[in-house]
C-alpha cells in the first residue's frame, strides 16, 4: 500500500499544496526566487482576460445545464422504452465516449466548418438552409462547444440513468397502472422521481468537470473569436505553458480549487436540506 500512497501523494495531494506555495513566490522558470505574498493573485485579477474567462466559464456551465444535463435523461428515458435492437442502441450511443477527447473536438471542428463545404452546412444545404458561421459566430460558440461535449459524454451518462431506471421496482408501475395512470403519468411520477438522486449526483460532477473545460476551446477556437470562448483552465494553460509564468498559473489554479470547493459545499448543503 505504501507505494500507492506515495503515488497519490505525488500526483494528487502534493501538487495541491505545491500550487499554494508556488503561487506565493516570484519564479524564473521552475526556480523559485523570493516570496511575493499575494502579488500573483493581484496579477491574475488585473489581467484583461480574467473576467471574460470567468464569465465564459459560467456560460459554459449555464449551457451545460440546459443541454448537457437534460439530453442524457431524455435519451435514457426514451431508450428504456425501446425493445428492438436494444444492444445496438446502447453500444451506438456509447460509442462517442470512446473517441479520445482531442480527436473528438478536432472531428467537430470539421463538422462546424463555416462556408459551403463544412459538413453541417452541406447537410443544411440539402434542407435549403443557407450556410451558417457556427463557431465563428460569438453568440453560438459556447453553446456549440457544449453540444460537442454533450455528444461525447451523453451516451455514458445515459447508460448510468438507464441502470437507475431499471432498478426501479416494477411493482410501482403495475400498481400505478391498476390505479389508472397513463404511461406518461407513470413516467412523470415514478421514473423521474426514481432517478432524482442520481441526477443530483451527476449534476454536481458535471458542474465540476465543465468548470475545468480546457481542450474544447483550446483546440476548436483557441478561446476566440475575440475571447468569446476562453475558459479559466485555458487561462491557466496559457500562463503556464505559453508564457511560462508558473506562479501566476498556480495562483489561478488555487482560485479555481477554492471556487469548486465552495460549489461542492453549497451542493452538500442543498441536498441535505432537500432530504430533511
Amino acid at each position, binding site marked *: *500500500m505504501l507505494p*500507492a*500512497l506515495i*503515488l*497519490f501523494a*505525488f*500526483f*494528487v495531494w502534493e*501538487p495541491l499544496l*505545491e500550487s499554494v506555495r*508556488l503561487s506565493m513566490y516570484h519564479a524564473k522558470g*521552475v526556480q523559485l526566487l523570493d516570496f511575493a505574498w499575494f502579488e500573483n493573485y493581484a496579477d491574475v485579477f488585473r489581467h484583461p482576460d480574467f473576467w471574460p474567462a470567468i464569465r465564459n466559464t459560467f456560460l459554459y456551465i449555464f449551457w451545460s445545464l440546459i443541454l448537457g444535463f437534460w439530453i442524457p435523461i431524455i*435519451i435514457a428515458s*426514451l*431508450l*428504456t*422504452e*425501446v*425493445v*428492438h435492437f436494444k444492444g*445496438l*442502441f*446502447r453500444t*451506438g450511443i456509447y*460509442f*462517442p*465516449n*470512446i473517441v*479520445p*477527447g*482531442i*480527436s473528438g473536438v478536432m*472531428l467537430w471542428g*470539421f463538422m462546424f466548418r463555416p462556408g*459551403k463545404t463544412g*459538413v453541417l452546412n452541406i447537410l443544411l444545404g440539402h434542407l435549403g438552409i443557407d450556410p451558417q458561421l457556427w463557431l465563428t459566430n460569438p453568440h453560438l460558440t459556447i453553446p456549440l462547444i457544449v453540444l460537442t461535449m454533450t*455528444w461525447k459524454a451523453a451516451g455514458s451518462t445515459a*447508460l*448510468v440513468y438507464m*441502470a437507475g*431506471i431499471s432498478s*426501479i421496482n*416494477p411493482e410501482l*408501475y403495475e400498481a400505478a*397502472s391498476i390505479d389508472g395512470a397513463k*404511461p406518461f403519468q407513470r413516467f412523470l411520477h415514478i421514473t423521474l422521481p426514481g432517478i432524482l438522486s442520481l441526477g443530483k449526483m451527476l449534476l454536481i460532477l458535471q458542474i*465540476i468537470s465543465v*468548470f*475545468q473545460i*480546457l481542450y474544447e476551446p483550446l483546440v476548436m477556437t483557441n478561446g476566440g473569436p475575440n475571447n468569446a470562448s476562453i475558459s479559466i483552465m485555458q487561462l*491557466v494553460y496559457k500562463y*503556464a*505553458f505559453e508564457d511560462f509564468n*508558473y506562479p501566476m*498559473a*498556480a495562483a489561478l*489554479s*488555487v482560485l479555481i*480549487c477554492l471556487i469548486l470547493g465552495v460549489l*461542492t459545499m453549497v451542493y452538500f448543503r442543498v441536498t441535505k436540506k432537500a432530504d430533511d
Partner: protein
Amino acid sequence: MFFKKYRKKTEGAIRFYDLHSPGTRFATVLIFLAAVVFLVIALFPMFWVAVSGFKDIQELRLTTSILPKSFDINSYVKTWNDFKFGKYYLNSFISVAGGVVCALLFNGTIAYVLAILKPRGHKVVFALVMWSLLIPPTTGIVALFVNIKRIGLTGSFLPLWLSMGANAFWVVLFKQFFEGLPREYFEAAQLDGCSDWRMFWNIVLPLSKPILMVVAIFAVTAAWSDFLLPYLVLSGSGKETVMVRLFNFRTAIKHTDVDLIRAIVFSVIPPTIIFAIFQKQITQGIAAGGIKG
C-alpha cells in the same frame, strides 16, 4: 410484429397492456424513431471522418458530397508513412502498457489493504483517497509539471505510467469488489500463516478477474486518450504519443486537412477495436460504477 416484443417488457413506463390504445402505439413508434435519430447523431461524425479520409484535398474543399469518389486505401497508407504514425503508435503502446500495469498493481494493492487487511488508520487513508475524487485533477497539473521538471523526469514515460497508479475511482471500484469476496477465504489463509503478499497473489487476484478486466479496459482507454500530461512531459523528446502528435497538427503547417482527417481516424482505431471486443464489460462497468470512466 413490431409490438409483439413489448410483451416481455418489464422496465420503464410503457407496458404491453398499454398498447391497445392507438395513441400509445403511435408513441412507441415515435420513440423508436427518436432512438434511431440519436444513434445516427452519435455515429455520423465518425462515419464522415472515416469515409472522408479517402478523399483528396481538392475533393474535400470543393465538393459537397459526403461519400468520396473512390475508396483507395493508399491515401491512408501515404499519410501513415508521411507522418510516421508507426512510431507514434509504438510510443502510445509503450505508454499504455506501462500505465495499465501501474493502474492494476498500485490501485489494486491499496484497495486490498483498505478492504481486507484494514490496518490502523485505514479509515483516514480511505477518506484521503475519497477526497481526491473531489479534487479536480487539472488544478494540480501546473504544480505537478513543475515537480516532474525539477526531478528531471521530462521526456520519460515513467511519470505517465505512475500517474495511472493514483486513480481514486479505480481504487473505489477495486475496494467494492474485494469487499464482496467471501471473508472465510482470507480468515482461513491467515490461520494457515499465509503472508499478506501471498494472500494477494494467490487468493485475491485469481478471484478478481472480472474487476481486473474492467479496470484494465478503463486504463487502456484512459492512457490512450490522455493528452495534457503526455503533451507536457513528452513534447520534443521523440517519444510523443498519438494524441500529442494529433494535437501538434493544430500548429504544424506541413499538412493538409485530409491528412488531419486520416490522423483522427488513426487515433480512434485502437479504442474502437478495444470497444468492439469488450463492449459488454465496458457498458456494464459504466452502469455499475455510476461514474464516467
